[in-house]
């Protein structure tokens, strides 16, 4: 198939960016979306032009590197997957595709479609851990049984890949789904109890400091999350936050 692409180009974080038109031809429907961009980039390189920069690494939907706002939707039109798993069979010959970086104040643009998501890391530095040293003398792994339902919910929350689609989908650029998933994982497990109150307070405080917006319960984050992280995590975090601050 032949496609028209409208891609955000921006030389660096301070330069002014703009949408530039490109065409790609003879794209196979079995290609992934990023392989289609590989074709464009090989073509640009051969013509002596600078290829389009985008983040990507594992290309199997788990590392969270890839992003892209495709026709206005984080990770494109297909549900519950990342951009690297999106295949061209979701598009038709002659389609026009608009490709932009994820847009949020807390995710400044590095170049073209690459954004800086280090704000996510800093929120995690604030408290997304259990303070246990590597000693080899922690108690036996089976010493504390954990209710399977709680363990499964903790796993579901922990399966967040940190891609930032929730922020990009939110009209307020809120990071509540991301932060609440991590808070929930620890709140649900016995190992997370000791630092439970301090953790939620510190992480929320850092989240605010990074410039993410507030949550207005729109739910777009849950719809666009490639890993299906549930919005109930946000409710849990609100409860945790209020609980720890009313004491």
């Amino acid at each position, binding site marked *: 198939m032949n496609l028209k692409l409208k891609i955000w180009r921006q030389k660096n974080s301070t330069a002014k960016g703009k949408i530039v038109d490109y065409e790609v031809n003879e794209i196979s429907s079995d290609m992934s979306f990023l392989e289609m961009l590989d074709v464009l980039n*090989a073509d640009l390189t051969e013509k002596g032009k600078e290829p389009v920069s985008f983040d990507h690494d594992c290309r199997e939907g788990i590392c969270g590197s890839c992003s892209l706002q495709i026709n206005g939707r984080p990770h494109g039109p297909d549900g519950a*997957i990342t951009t690297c798993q999106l295949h061209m069979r979701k598009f038709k010959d002659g389609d026009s595709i608009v490709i932009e970086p994820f847009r949020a104040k807390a995710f400044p643009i590095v170049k073209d479609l690459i954004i800086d998501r280090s704000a996510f890391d800093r929120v995690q530095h604030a408290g997304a851990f259990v303070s246990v040293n590597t000693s080899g003398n922690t108690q036996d792994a089976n010493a504390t049984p954990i209710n*399977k339902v709680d*363990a499964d919910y903790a796993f579901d929350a922990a399966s967040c890949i940190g891609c930032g689609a929730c922020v990009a989908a939110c009209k307020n650029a809120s990071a509540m789904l991301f932060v609440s998933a991590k808070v929930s994982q620890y709140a649900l497990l016995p190992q997370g109890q000791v630092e439970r109150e301090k953790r939620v307070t510190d992480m929320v405080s850092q989240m605010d400091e990074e410039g993410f917006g507030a949550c207005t319960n729109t739910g777009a984050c849950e719809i666009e999350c490639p890993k299906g992280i549930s919005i109930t995590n946000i409710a849990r975090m609100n409860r945790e936050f209020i609980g720890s601050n009313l004491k």
Partner: protein
Amino acid sequence: MTLGENFPAKTPEGPIEDKWTSYKNKIDLVNPANKRLIDIIVVGTGLAGASAAASLAELGYNVKAFCFQDSPRRAHSIAAQGGINASKNYMGDGDSDYRLFYDTVKGGDYRAREENVYRLAEVSGNIIDQCVAQGVPFARDYGGLLDNRSFGGVLVSRTFYAKGQTGQQLLLGAYSAMNRQIARGKIKMYNRHEMMDLVLVEGKARGIIAKNLITGDLERHSAHAVVIASGGYGNVFYLSTNAMGSNVSAAWKIHKKGAWFANPCFTQIHPTCIPVSGDHQSKLTLMSESLRNDGRIWVPAKEEDAKAIRSGKLKPTEIAESDRDYFLERRYPAFGNLVPRDVASRAAKERCDAGFGVNATGEAVYLDFASAMTRYGKEKALVTHQDASNEALVLELGKEIIATKYGNLFQMYEKIVDQNPYETPMMIYPAVHYTMGGVWVDYDLMTTIPGCYAIGEANFSEHGANRLGASALMQGLADGYFVLPYTIGNYLAKDIRTGTIPVDTPEFAAAEKSVQKQLELFINNKGSKPVDYFHKKLGKVMWDKVGMSRNGRDLKNAVKDIQAIRDEFYKEVKVPGDLNGFNEELAKAGRVADFLELGELFAKDALNREESCGGHFREEYQTPEGEAKRDKAFQYVAAWEHSGAPKDAKLHKEMLDYKYIEVKERSYK
């Protein structure tokens, strides 16, 4: 020359069960106040690098950690699916440290160092304890205890897992331990930085030249020791299950500075990957080995059926049970579909080469869940007091169970192949997945460069000629959490009075200058072809001639082909953009340049090893039944010393001596 003369493996004396303990009791320690005076660089933040960085920082060392990704959490350990082994014996099925040790040495076809493997088995249980304490959400049963499943090449259930995302959960655990140390200022994290070279001062590793991938600036970083945890080199094949950015460069740079490179030809070709669909393909996707717990592998028993399937005239579900060849169950009745990876891969290739392959390309076999769905469905129907003779109901219930076990893998398959694996069998084919070879290290995990360590997949150590499933996560975390933090102190104890290593020295200046020169060479080159053109060309030679089965003639040709591609690369490569700012093509050019050297050494090593063992299959050396034929004369680690060019690399042999395991024919029949 034998390796032992210059660089002994330094394995401790005494019975194997006591070696690690007595070693730990005797090593030099660094007191806490002095640890604050010592800097350590860790390159790579996968399971090995992240766990090492966190543990070293907890001990009090100043750690500088580097990753080329935008966050340490994105290292490719994140993609490991199936699980992690530990000899906990929670299932009560007779597991023990010795049995895990035995299975690993046998699984590696007797080409790994006994002492290292025993230590690995010994600390495997600690890893699970540590991860649970960190809040890693492993799968549990209804009693709230940890669940286990089986992996290939063993007869016990010792694999801990978190759905099909075990690597993700373990890496996020190690990342959380890093975050705690980053917050305390004990780890300084350098994201989007690539190590460009190692700096030696008076023969010791004392720092690195790193490139800031955003600004393009070269930076000098010094330390008292440098730890390489940069993963494997499977991307030398271009198509592999590795991430796009996975590369050999850090390991290769230290090789060129004096670290010997061991067994480069030992590569794992994983049997269950989604088959290649076309030339556009940029990477291959693994379907976890855990699927072989429930999936049965088969091809049509009649060649005409295989032909009809390839041309689209017949569907796999239309082939009668009696016309299917479950070739693993047929050839290896004792282990069946759970034979080790190298054995399963070769068996699939043998059937496809013989004309029984499916898919339009003829390069695929089926992985079928129909009988597992029926089995699970019947059990569920009985337990829930429903009609177990109702086939439709049984199938429906069975599908639900399979979905809870492997849902994410089935979804991934459907997105890529556009077929529903609940309705029709999956198609799979072997693909490059892991490299057992790597930088040679001694018992301390130190390379042949003093003060330079290699851990995780980057070193050659525990897996011999074939790695068993769920052992990579175990080794990465063992090295990072429980081995290196002890052994590195033994070296650093002598460095407490050294003080900060200055970077304004001729050694750093010279290293930076040579990096700068190579970058300029790429940017100023007047070529016409993009980097990927050469990478794909190299990958094709590697797959065709140095892949799943190898022979002397092809290997000799491969050496020549790779040399020719390398010459062409330096003449014809075109790297757009400039030296400053983010330039992915420039980063790729440097990585492919290193692959073009490693590839040649790889082929040379495969040519030298005139035997078949594990993942290394030489067609000239096989039993009448087509199984790998080992040769006692090659019971050694081949460690290569750099000497100008790959063709001139010098071979050193570390002879392997088996005192605790009897070397037998490796049979899974």
